[in-house]
């Protein structure tokens, strides 16, 4: 098997649900050895979160869990017991990273604060992901996805002005935190090599959002000028096509090609050369001001064509256009199929299924085919007997005592 980018890195993964597991999934997908530690009996609570394969609730049939935990080894360990903590410290000696996303009081409550971990393994990086961070007055607040999205600055901008703001659904904030934590963790590992010692990395889900490009844009805009981004009466960028909708920017936008070039391409696409002499649309500022009238000219052109046809014709003229896709269309999209983004993973509980893959194609260190998410305690024997030298009798005793 060809070497992978992270094959020399070992991760002890205490994470659960989404934010932590997405961080460790990225590390695992690029070849790190990730040992996922779950409480005996129930395991990671995500095992009980749908959607389930064939709508059958089962700890090995949660689509969320299966997706998030590919390429990880799975063991059980009860950190609420002194013996569990002792065994954890044994595992800790040989790893580079510990990732956890418990509420901030929990790890110190186990006797496993960063200071305690560093006593056992001075090089270890401890990545701690939480809703609001390890410090501060909201540190112990509870949150779900909608809470987190609301408290950073974007929900206030999302939706209609005269109606309630809308959240993004799913677990968007949590995945984001996992994504940024993986980057910080890699840097932490490299820093530990530089300095000869590890450290703790505190990742707050809310601050991860505020620190995105969009977060910085909203915050700095307000700080510099007092202008606040607000909800509007709708968006002029999503427009009806014959068979659905397209993303289509008629007036031009700040991040696209230079406005006049963009405008002449659009005029050519619509085959309306007379618009070039139309005062209402002569400049970017004019088009923005008269966008309603401009859209009235553009809409008929769009509603006569399908979203894929609009995209094809527009892209040929170098006009930005994209179809609004539903999830089935994304999975079956010819581009995603050609790039093999959705990959087949076989799991004993479900058989082969297509999963979202991982996003970077590395030429020297291609990702190997994904291994399925572990069943609860699947690798107990391999880790406890194989690596730590516990006998079969020991494992029976540990199981009976509820340690594993």
């Amino acid at each position, binding site marked *: 098997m060809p070497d992978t980018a992270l094959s020399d890195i070992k991760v002890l993964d205490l994470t659960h649900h989404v934010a932590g597991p997405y961080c460790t999934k990225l590390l695992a997908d690029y070849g790190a050895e990730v040992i996922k530690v779950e409480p005996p009996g129930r395991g990671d609570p995500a095992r009980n979160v749908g959607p389930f394969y064939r709508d059958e609730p089962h700890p090995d049939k949660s689509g969320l869990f299966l997706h998030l935990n590919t390429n990880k080894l799975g063991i059980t360990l009860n950190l609420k017991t002194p013996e569990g903590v002792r065994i954890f410290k044994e595992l800790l000696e040989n790893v580079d990273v510990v990732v956890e996303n418990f509420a901030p009081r929990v790890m110190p409550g186990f006797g496993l604060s960063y200071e305690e971990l560093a006593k056992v393994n001075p090089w270890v990086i401890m990545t701690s992901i939480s809703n609001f961070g390890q410090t501060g007055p909201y540190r112990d607040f509870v949150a779900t996805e909608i809470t987190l999205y609301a408290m950073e600055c974007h929900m206030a901008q999302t939706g209609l002005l005269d109606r309630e703001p809308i959240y993004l659904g799913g677990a968007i904030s949590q995945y984001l935190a996992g994504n940024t934590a993986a980057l910080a963790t890699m840097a932490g590992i490299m820093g530990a090599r530089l300095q000869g010692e590890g450290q703790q990395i505190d990742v707050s889900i809310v601050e991860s959002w505020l620190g995105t490009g969009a977060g910085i844009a909203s915050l700095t805009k307000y700080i510099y000028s007092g202008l606040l981004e607000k909800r509007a009466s709708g968006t002029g960028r999503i427009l009806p096509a014959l068979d659905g909708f397209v993303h289509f920017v008629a007036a031009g936008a700040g991040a696209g090609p230079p406005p006049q070039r963009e405008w002449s391409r659009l005029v050519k696409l619509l085959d309306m050369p007379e618009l070039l002499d139309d005062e209402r649309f002569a400049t970017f500022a004019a088009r923005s001001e008269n966008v309603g009238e401009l859209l009235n000219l553009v809409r008929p052109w769009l509603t006569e064509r399908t979203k894929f046809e609009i995209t094809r014709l527009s892209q040929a003229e170098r006009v930005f256009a*994209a179809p609004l896709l539903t999830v089935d269309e994304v999975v079956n999209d010819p581009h995603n199929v050609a790039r093999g983004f959705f990959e087949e993973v076989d799991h004993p509980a479900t058989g082969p299924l297509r999963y979202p893959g991982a996003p970077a194609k590395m030429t020297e260190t291609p990702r190997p085919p994904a291994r399925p998410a572990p069943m609860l305690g699947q690798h107990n024997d391999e880790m406890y007997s194989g690596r730590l030298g516990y006998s079969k009798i020991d494992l029976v005793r540990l199981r009976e005592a509820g340690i594993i």
Partner: protein
Amino acid sequence: MSRLPLEGFRVIDGGDVLAGPYGCTLLGDLGAEVIRVESIQRGARWRGQLRTPATRPASISPANWTYPDGIPGERPYNREPKYNGSNRNKMGITLNLAHPRGIDLFKQLVAVSDVIIENFAAGVYEKLGLGYEVLSGINPGIVVVSMPLLGNTGPYRAHRGMGTDLDALSGHISLRGYSDGDPTKVQPHYHSDSVSGMTAAFAALAALNYRRRTGKGQFIDISEGETFLPHLGEAFMDYTMNGRVGRPMGNAHPTMAPHGCYRCQGEDSWVTIAVPNDQAWARFRHAIGDPGWAAEDRFADAVSRRNNQAELNPLIEEWTIQRSPWEVMRLLQAAKVPAGPVQNAEEILVDPHLKARGFFDLATHKEAGTHLYPRPSWKFNKTPLSIRMLGPVLGEHNSQILGGLLGLSEAEIGELEHQQIIGTEYLAAADQ
């Protein structure tokens, strides 16, 4: 510990708009030396619309000028807030890559760098004579991250677009929004750009980790359109497992109820509340004063609450509308019920938690004055990160990099300026 984690690595920020440059900013935050390459011929998109005095009347109207106190100044492109904030911790030079001397200097930079991240359209670097074969010939250890909108391969590789196009292509718009499913009511976002940036930075570090073992650099192809797709994983799994195609649910949730956004006292004032299970429901009822309706059978368990949320939500709103969002948060958080206000930028600036966390820092920019800025968002306990410098003014570090790093003489640098291969002010061409 005195050295930042990525100290000693040099990164070329060779991209544009947001995704690539943002990824480079993150590497700069972590201690890498980052050099952003722009040009005086072609406007950097994130520096805003106003380039030369000629463009001003024709560009965005003054009501939307985001410059300090609304004043563009002599060089508005050096006073754009989002540029200055999101290009922190990096140096900036200009090079005309349409000129052979500009290409030559770029190659000299590659020779002494570790990573390049670029997010131009597929094939642009090849056309410039900067394809991976050329760059790795100059520097076998170079890690090249190439991140066009839809990647370097595939039938749509030539497609162009922005972050909001990716929002449409990801399927996310079809999964969120008001429950009537009308996608024209919700502004598309450009979240993919930031996710792509952090993914590019992560992939670059993974490649450096491999290089440490083997000495080899590599070429990494990333499609911006793919980086966000795993963030919708469970929606895709519901399709591949069960053939189900997700739809918007407003602020409702597949299993939790109540779950939503409720009006509070004052204009455009909202709080979000989520009650994850029956135990939380009991605490919620008590926290809001045990009103009679809350004890009714039709709200007794999660399934019933979900089925009756059309009646439940207005009843809750009768309680929230009398209070501020922060008061609701305090009362419900004391009962361990997830509640949080919908906050805008103004409210975030005075958020007591973020203040205590030191999330904002005061910094002075060469041409934009002194303002608060968001700091790098991870907290490393032994090597704290900070804003070491704000986004560079155009060509700010030309002398330092071309002279100091590449060893050009003052005369040579003067000649480059004279030929407009480098510079610090946009030419009229930048408006085209």
